[in-house]
């Protein structure tokens, strides 16, 4: 898994995590379980793809991905990003190995 900073401003930073394959619904639920009080939403698009959005606790950020792409985006509060990034990496590595 690799990651790259793709957007930075005073408020938010956006990281891209490239996995080897898309995460399925079970993997997204496992990601949600990693954080207590997170909120997972899934939307089935008209193309049949499923869009996942995992809101992290206390509005510190969100993870977004889909059933058709191995890329996951993490949009994090800039003030929290340093502390959150290791957790995001650990969570993604854990579910990618499931």
């Amino acid at each position, binding site marked *: 898994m690799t990651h790259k900073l793709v*957007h930075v401003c005073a408020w938010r930073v956006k990281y891209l995590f490239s996995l080897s394959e898309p995460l399925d619904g079970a993997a997204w639920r496992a990601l949600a379980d990693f954080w207590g009080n997170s909120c997972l939403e899934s939307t089935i698009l008209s193309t049949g793809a499923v*869009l996942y959005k995992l809101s992290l606790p206390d509005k510190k950020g969100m993870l977004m991905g889909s059933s058709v792409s191995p890329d996951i985006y993490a949009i994090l509060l800039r003030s929290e990003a340093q502390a959150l990034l290791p957790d995001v990496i650990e969570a993604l590595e854990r579910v990618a190995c499931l």
Partner: protein
Amino acid sequence: MSTKVTVAFQPVLDKGALLLGGEPHVVHCHYYNHFLQTSIEDAEALYPVEEVLVWTAQEIAHSLFQKLFAEEGITDHERRKALVEAVYTRCGYGKVSLSGISADGGEIATPYEHYAYTYAATFPPRPKGKRGVAYFSQGYLAGAIEAIYDLPLGSMGSQQTACLTQGDAEVRWRFYRLPQPLPLTPSVGEGASQKGTIFQPSTTRVPMAQVRDAVLGLPLLPDAETGLIEAFGVVLTFIPGNYYALISERHLQRMIQVAGEEVRPLVLDMLVESGHVCAFNTLGGIMQSAEWDAVVGPYLDTPEDWLYGITAVMPAIGWGIVGCIEHPSAQKWELCLPNWYETSALAALPPHQRKMEYSPFAEGLFAGIMALVYKAGIHERRLTFDGHLYKQLFQDGRVYKASFYQSRLRGDSRDALTVTSLDA
């Protein structure tokens, strides 16, 4: 008693428009919103900018809610207030309660208002003592209050009395009846809107109608607590397109009034720059997002597919149908815009009441997209969107320029423009 209200935009597929209360709504992000507003606000020493930024919102909200109340058959003041509150949040403006409002006015306060919240979070502090940034909401709520109580347009005065950007804990406005109404005019609504056909070029696998339909189905919804819409790494609003078109036009008119025709290129350059800001932040954010990867990603074979893909998104965010006249290249991109939202607003005005002859915003926007693809190479590598990249693409290293060769605002039957490489 709480009243459950549902608010839904009505997509008009053959126009590429999203209607609510007869007003075409368009999606923009907080970077564009602030760039345009701040650029206009910078002229505050030359003319009273509230007359543009606040009054225009008041006109549009008054027309919008008059129509919406009539459509829904709502005459009760409390139900009307509930609908205004629901629309305000659905559009991503934030959260407000109108419980303290009567036909004589009153106060509204909120910790969550799009312009104030995102400004305080994103930009350096404003000078102490400067007025708040919630111009749009101020006018919008004034117009909505007039509509709730069936008051004439312009009869409600307003003032912003607190702002997050001044260190206050909330945004607050005061509303009051005026002895004489302000000189406001009703919104043009759909204006001179035109129908078009979704464009499917034979030179790409990107399924234009399918992309549009998938984007229309994206959950671009406000957060339940804040009423703000976070998506693509930015904060989005659904603001009536007439607002953007008219504040741009009226700013140009006021500037020409006070400083003469020679100021026109300066204002137009600012509006071109607003297009760059939008391409960079809103469209760049979209092109590096989970939504883009899911909807458009599977069809992206060539750099040109990125251009087709992003133009397929535009009708779904209310900007109008976009057609590519010829297969684009790194040197040239030729487009037609049958129902560009700014043109449809301004073409509804009598010619002597407008100074704009085309959409400078669109020029900056499409030049900006070309720069993202062919200069920055978004199709072959993931970019880091920051101030350094913006400078590279649109300041020191600007390489694309667009120009309208047909414009409905000059009497042509459609808008058409060419983006060309300055290196060619």
